[in-house]
């Protein structure tokens, strides 16, 4: 009898069934983990401790693996810089001449803006401090686009902080350990960023899909966007500051508007984390959600009896009364001190 006669044929079916049953059990476990997982609660979810621990292990390894490549790249840049110094010098001189013109315009505009702000009493966001870090690991797949960066809570990084490159917004922090943070890229399928078109101020939501150009969702208005328009963060919702460069509008293959990200101009290596406090978190939400006290009763003034006046011979046009002309007595009385509100739990 040869081996091909298969004397152990009877053991094949039970083993196959056992393997299939094991796969089903593993599938159920994985499905339960998927249901329990919430990437939004990266810091507080059940798997957060495992993720933070693995981030701390993975980051130094990939950082060490990337180091030789960076060194080789640095040597290559040094050699090419040596041989192309003359042409580089010519190019930089041309750029410098153009930049001087722009500098004069910028100084004039800055002065003009400062005067307008002073006239309008406009209050701008205070400048936020930044932390510089290096990307040490990345995932580029269609289902997850994240990076590990080598700065964490020890340097003040918190969940939600925006991450910039020299070209524009790259993403935001979704997980923090003492020395390592995980950044969610704008291209991740779970990323949603409030943006606006600079030319029209039209609002939209930048929706990542794992591809190279995220989609502009919920874009309202006719001719709200056209090819090449600059896209900035709108600051809506207070999650991100207003005015960070995001990219340029392009027409997608599906006909919809998409954004070619500004960060695609160069590999993302060094990044800046803006230690920006979301203004929603600056206030106590429980206080904000309390019902406001009822308005004070308005006293009914004793109106004097009007005396009959002689009718004018000619009607005069109605003029707007300047605010300064209103006497102080005509202004409404200031509200009394706020009364303690009744205890009430805010709506969930």
């Amino acid at each position, binding site marked *: 009898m040869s081996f091909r006669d298969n004397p152990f044929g009877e053991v094949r079916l039970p083993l196959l069934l056992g393997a*299939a049953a094991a796969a089903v*059990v593993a599938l159920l476990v994985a499905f339960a*983990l998927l249901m329990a997982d919430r990437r939004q609660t990266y810091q507080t979810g059940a798997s957060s401790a495992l993720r933070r621990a*693995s981030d701390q292990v993975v980051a130094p390894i990939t950082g060490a693996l990337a180091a030789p*490549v960076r060194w080789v790249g640095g040597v290559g840049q040094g050699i090419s810089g040596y041989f192309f110094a003359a042409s580089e010098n010519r190019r930089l001189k041309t750029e410098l001449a153009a930049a001087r013109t722009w500098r004069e315009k910028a100084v004039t505009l800055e002065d003009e803006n400062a005067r307008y702000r002073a006239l309008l009493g406009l209050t701008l966001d205070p400048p936020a401090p930044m932390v510089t870090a290096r990307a040490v690991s*990345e*995932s*580029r797949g269609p289902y*997850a686009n994240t990076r590990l960066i080598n700065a964490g809570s020890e340097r003040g990084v918190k969940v939600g902080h925006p991450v910039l490159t020299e070209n524009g917004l790259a993403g935001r922090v979704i997980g923090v350990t003492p020395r390592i943070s995980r950044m969610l890229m704008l291209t991740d399928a779970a990323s949603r960023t409030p943006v606006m078109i600079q030319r029209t101020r039209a609002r939209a939501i930048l929706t990542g899909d794992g591809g190279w150009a995220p989609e502009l969702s919920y874009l309202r208005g006719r001719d709200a966007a056209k090819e090449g328009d600059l896209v900035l963060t709108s600051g809506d919702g207070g999650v991100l500051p207003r005015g960070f460069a995001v990219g340029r509008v392009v027409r997608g293959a599906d006909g919809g508007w998409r954004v070619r990200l500004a960060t695609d101009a160069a590999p993302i290596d060094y990044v800046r984390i803006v230690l920006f406090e979301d203004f929603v978190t600056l206030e106590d939400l429980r206080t904000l959600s309390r019902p406001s006290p009822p308005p004070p009763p308005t006293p009914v003034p004793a109106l004097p009896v009007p005396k009959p006046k002689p009718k004018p011979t000619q009607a005069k046009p109605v003029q707007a009364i300047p605010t300064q002309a209103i006497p102080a007595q005509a202004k409404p009385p200031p509200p009394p001190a706020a009364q303690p509100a009744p205890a009430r739990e805010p709506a969930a």
Partner: protein
Amino acid sequence: MTAIARPLRFSRWIGAPLLACLALSLVLATPIHVLGLPLPEPVTLMVPAFAWGVIRPALAPAFALLLGGLALDVLWGAPSGLWAISLLAGYLPGLAIRNVLAGQSNLVLGVWFAVSCLVAQGVGWLITAAVTGSPPALAATGLQWLSTVLLFPFAVWLIARFRDADVRFR
């Protein structure tokens, strides 16, 4: 005892390929660009997921894929369970028709490997679309599928190395 009759050890046909694939995924997660292009991101664990189903039916591969998938989720920052489910979905087609695949040419194995990878990517695509509310880009999904299919020679090597390791499963 000859090499062929040597019993199949768990560490040789499950443990070593699993660790090797995770190590390769870790290396490919390095943020470097070669000739201006980023490194590809294939699903390396599809190689053993396909090969284990063809080599022999056993209980261990399913749980090894569960662990490997969770490790990929942690490494890539994906929702927990996404890659475990996808890999198991890619493992089951090979397991289901392993009798048909026995003795077939590499071309047939390659086509079935591509189908298994497609099933895994499709399941991952559906899960991501359901979890995030927006379908992932098909171009990016196709690119990852292609880079994974290009790992087929490693699957052939793994199958050839362990297919005849236990004469009961010829």
